[in-house]
């Protein structure tokens, strides 16, 4: 296809230009700015959709790609820094997801933030953020990736701290930026390693993914050590630290719940649908490095711990957004778990499906929150204990939220089931094969799935069903009427929570097929894991310069076909399918069990939540306090260690080094000069110089005493002298 700069670059540039123009028009024309931003993102969506349709409908080839580079700057022939775009199937899907979901969220934001006095500036930040995420998706190299990644970090900072009149958003934004920053610097170090290795192998450093894959295939990392750790492990760990930071994995998950301080569409766009997904996307992009660095087990554990830990924390939240925030962390944990167990495209699929339904959930919660206005505090209500029975008031929102909750819980026919089940299925295979290593992550994964179903429906039941617990609030809540920017985005997103969009079969494994959509496992077919065996194809990948039209006549891209055996032998494939089916059945059971438990507890009230809380109050407190991570980081690591240490250093600097050594040295010199001055005064001046004068004066005094003018005294002297002369004279 004839891709030129004009058909690709605007995907990023449109929202970016909307940001630039908007920053000048925001003050004067807020409405216009909001519309312009939406239009710009819709433009990105159209261009992305074109690419997507091209990739999926026309080519349908896992090998099809577009790679364009341009020289950013060079420092002589030995150092050229290229930026560029790289679109393969994964980027194409991510692009369409980000721009599509992003557009819907923007649309919703025009409703949610419409009355806010800083509506326009909110919209342009969102626009810049979307540009950043699209840049991440388009970037052909790790440096560009990193740059857009950081731009997203900045936008996240600005948007979390959007309500800067209050104190809490300030803390939350600082925490978010700093926590992700820790991951980012490791990411940066990973970049350095990649640059160095590519320089060693190719003689020309590069950050491009393709070059990275080629270098891995060429064994560029083999046998290299860094600080006693294999270089590949080190590099993989660095990139995975980026994931941990950005995707809020254990142990850096602390920032994401606080990030809910931002307006709700922000939470939907940044902290659920896209930005946090960028971390997982990074892990997927550097998957070969994780593989040759033997990090997958580690990744599995991190994912499983995160998924389970966040799910448990979500159990006790009373804030509707907090439940969703922890659920996000938990789902991200599932994705990372998927990466860890090697189910590359399931992880990516979960990224996409999760983005859709989590965006929808957040927007729905935004819809709920926006409707509930507390006339006493003049603020919106987010606390679930004050809700209840809202289904009657908000039928559309309720519908969207229930459907999305079904999807996230892993109920069949919904997207969450398709993607999550595949991850759990692979975890099950690994767990059964190697229970000593993968047993625990598998177990935690299933447990987290159970908890997910439970807490999601706990939220649904508490919010929409039962009796309204705050009657006044309920009465003030307006009945929802359909509006294009409030309900339309929810409903559109709801449509895409259905499983068949993503897979032609119920489980996503081509096993239980939907009627009429046989062999449409496009997701699995097109996303090919770049593991050790599949790296060879990247050697043929070439990049065009920026301005040229993308034509690859000499290379043909055969249409890909779904391989049900996934390259395994017949027996192995059968074994895997058997386990997957049993896993699917298990997870269906688990999902319904979770929903049923929630039903028992919050609708039937046959299980009393209060009894559980009082019985396990220690656990309850632990969960309420987020396993004391915040306490540990802020109160102990930062306040007790870092602050003390920095105060100590500053004290050493000014109190010891400057005051004692530098000023002390001045003092020493001062003292020395004081004593030399004293010496000068006393010895040189007083004694030597004045002393000469004084001695003259002294003898003057003596002689003057003799020169008394008394003649008789002279005679005495004369005679005494004469006598002494004569008496000593030796006269013969």
């Amino acid at each position, binding site marked *: 296809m004839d891709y030129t700069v004009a058909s690709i670059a605007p995907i990023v540039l449109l929202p970016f230009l909307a940001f630039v123009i908007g920053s000048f028009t925001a003050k004067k024309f807020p409405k216009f700015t909001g519309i312009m931003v939406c239009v710009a993102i819709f433009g990105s969506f159209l261009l992305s959709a074109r690419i997507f349709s091209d990739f999926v409908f026309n080519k349908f080839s896992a090998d099809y790609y577009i790679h364009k580079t341009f020289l950013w700057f*060079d420092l002589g022939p030995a150092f050229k820094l290229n930026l560029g775009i790289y679109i393969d199937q994964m980027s194409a899907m991510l692009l369409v997801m980000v721009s599509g979901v992003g557009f819907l969220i923007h649309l919703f934001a025009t409703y949610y933030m419409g009355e806010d006095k800083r509506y326009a500036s909110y919209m342009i930040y969102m626009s810049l953020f979307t540009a950043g995420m699209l840049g991440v998706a388009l970037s052909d190299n790790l440096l560009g990736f990193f740059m*857009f990644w950081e731009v997203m970090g900045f936008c996240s900072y600005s948007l979390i701290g959007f309500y800067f009149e209050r104190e809490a958003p300030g803390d939350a934004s600082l925490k978010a930026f700093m926590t992700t920053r820790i991951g980012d610097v490791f990411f940066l170090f990973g970049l350095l390693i990649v640059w160095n290795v590519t320089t060693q192998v190719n003689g020309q450093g590069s950050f491009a993914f393709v070059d990275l894959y080629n270098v891995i295939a060429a064994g560029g990392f083999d046998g290299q050590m860094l600080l006693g750790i294999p270089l590949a492990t080190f590099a993989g760990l660095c990139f995975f630290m980026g994931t941990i930071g950005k995707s809020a994995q254990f142990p850096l998950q602390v920032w994401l719940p606080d990030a809910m301080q931002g307006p709700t569409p922000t939470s939907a766009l940044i902290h659920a649908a896209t930005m946090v997904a960028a971390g997982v996307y990074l892990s997927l992009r550097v998957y070969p490095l994780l593989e040759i660095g033997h990090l997958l087990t580690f990744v599995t554990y991190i994912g499983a711990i995160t998924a389970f830990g966040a799910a448990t924390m979500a159990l006790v939240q009373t804030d509707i957004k907090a439940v969703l925030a922890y659920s996000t962390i938990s789902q991200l944990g599932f994705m990372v778990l998927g990466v860890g167990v090697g189910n590359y495209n399931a992880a990516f699929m979960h990224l996409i499906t999760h983005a859709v339904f989590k965006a929808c959930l957040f927007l729905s919660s935004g819809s709920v929150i926006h409707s509930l206005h507390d006339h006493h505090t003049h603020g919106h209500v987010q606390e679930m204990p004050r809700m209840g029975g809202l289904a009657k008031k908000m039928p559309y929102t309720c519908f969207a939220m229930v459907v999305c909750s079904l999807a996230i819980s892993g109920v069949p026919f919904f997207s969450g089931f398709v993607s999550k089940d595949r991850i759990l299925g692979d975890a099950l295979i690994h767990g059964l094969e190697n229970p000593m290593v993968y047993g625990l992550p598998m177990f935690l994964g299933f447990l987290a799935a159970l908890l997910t179903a439970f807490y999601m429906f706990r939220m649904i039941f508490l919010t929409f069903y039962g009796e309204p617990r705050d009657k006044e609030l309920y009465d003030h809540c307006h009945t929802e009427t359909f509006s294009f920017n409030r309900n339309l985005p929810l409903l559109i997103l709801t449509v895409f929570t259905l499983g068949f969009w993503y897979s032609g079969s119920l489980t996503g494994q081509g096993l239980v097929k939907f009627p009429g959509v046989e062999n449409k496992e496009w997701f699995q077919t097109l996303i090919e894991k770049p593991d050790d065996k599949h790296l060879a194809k990247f050697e043929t990948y070439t990049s065009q310069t920026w301005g040229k039209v993308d034509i690859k006549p000499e290379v043909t891209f055969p249409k890909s076909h779904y391989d049900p055996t996934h390259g395994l032998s017949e027996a192995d494939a059968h074994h895997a399918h058997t386990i997957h089916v049993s896993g699917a059945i298990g997870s269906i059971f688990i999902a319904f069990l979770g929903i049923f438990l929630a039903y028992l507890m919050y609708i039937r009230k046959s299980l009393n939540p209060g009894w559980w809380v009082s019985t396990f109050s220690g656990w309850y407190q632990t969960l309420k306090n987020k396993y004391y991570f915040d306490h540990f980081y802020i109160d102990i690591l930062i306040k007790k260690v870092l602050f003390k240490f*920095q105060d100590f250093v500053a004290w050493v600097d000014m109190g010891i080094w400057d005051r004692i050594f530098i000023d002390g040295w001045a003092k020493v010199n001062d003292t020395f000069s004081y004593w030399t001055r004293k010496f000068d005064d006393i010895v040189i001046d007083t004694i030597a110089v004045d002393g000469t004068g004084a001695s003259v004066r002294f003898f003057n005094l003596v002689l003057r005493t003799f020169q008394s003018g008394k003649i008789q005294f002279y005679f005495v002297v004369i005679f005494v002298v004469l006598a002494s002369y004569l008496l000593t004279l030796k006269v013969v």
Partner: protein
Amino acid sequence: MHGLLNWILWLPFLGAVLILFIPKEKVGAIRWFSVAVTAATFVLCCILYSNFDNTIAGIQPITSVTLPWIKSFNIYYKLGIDGISLPMVWINGLLFLICTFSSFDIKKMHKGYYSLLLMLQGSIFGVFMSLDFFLFYVFWEVMLLPMFFLIGVWGGENREYAAIKFFLYTFFGSVLMLLAIIALYFSAEGTLGAETFDMVKLMGGHFENLRLSLFGMDLPFDKVFFILLFVGFAIKVPIVPFHTWLPHAHVQAPTAVSVILAGVLLKMGTYGFLRISYPIFPQSAWYFGDILAWMGLINVIYGALCAMAQTDIKRLIAYSSVSHMGFVMLGIASMTTEGMNGAVLQMFNHGLSTAMMFLLIGILYERSHHRWIVTPEGKKGFGGLYTQMPKYSIIFIIGLFASLGLPGLSGFISEALVFIGIYKPYTTIALLGLIGLVLGAAYLLWMFRRMFFGEVIDSCKEYTDVNTREMFYMAPLCFLVIFLGIYPVPILDVMKTSVGKLVIDLAKFAP
């Protein structure tokens, strides 16, 4: 073209003299005259930039000036620029233009102030342009004088202490440098055939085999004088054990002087490394490379930690300068193309971002008359500035994020280049340097959070947002910071040939 450097160098001095003839009551005339002089100088700098030939490595012959000065000692009036000095010359022109605008706030003795400011500009130009050691030293010393008075007269409440400390500290360094210069002068006869102060002739590692007898010890000549030059330049940079003049000077200096101090003056130290220490003593540069790299690392982390503990904004930014100059040192110590380019670019970018920060603090100080994030009584010094001064806050955010190295703003590219450069020779240092990046974000954002978020505290309710004049001089910096963050080529193209030559020259002496 030949006279261009002369014009750039002497125009500020001329202005400094002419301004004395304006009656001191005519404050407006004094201000606008100095603006005119700096603007003219800046225009000349731009002409210089446009006439610069990127392909020539080393000194540009077209602009060089060589005139005999003191013939009997082989002292020449020799000016010239290359890719390393041009960015510095240009940013000097720019920052002084901005500083004259920002100095409209000063309250007393306008004539002397502007005269000294112009004199300072001229002498800094001289440092960056002179290719004769003697001339270099003269300008290096002349620079101290206006600086001393600018801090000592127009500074804060503890200005005399700061000014004297600044003066003595840097003077101590220059004396060591003078010693090295004289030693080089006399040793040049044995190695080069004639006694000379010419930097270009002295370059190239001619002093490797010389020995020096000192206190009965037989010492290598080049290493001893490398250390002396190092101390002289390190005080200017400042490298950590020699840095304590900086917080005092910054805190006490008036805004414009802080800007110049952080924006241009500190770069004289690193410029000295690139122009003098390294080319003249390449063997020693390799020999001491490890130590320099570690010192750079210490600068980065130590400066950041100290900055975190500060409650005075200016002092915080002063320490952040220490931290950022550490990156420059890392880049220089790496001796790689990327690292060196990164270092020079970082010199330029730090000049922009830190100038922004100091100007912004100056604007705030103009309104608040204090600079406490947390007052000594433990109360909030500022709060809710975001609500109170939205435009100011936006500019502040740009400066802040440029300073902490956000991609898309200028600081990132130079820091990334430095890290790419330092990774290969000193991997451990690169890894530890990351702590500096985290801390760098931490102290800046922590400051931002405490000052700008939350409710507007009572003392901040009177503050007005930035006015047109302030906007006018902040805008070019904002633009440059963003533009160079996206497209650094205009600066990199100028420097890369010269820096590349320097790296190649140094690589010849690699052990």
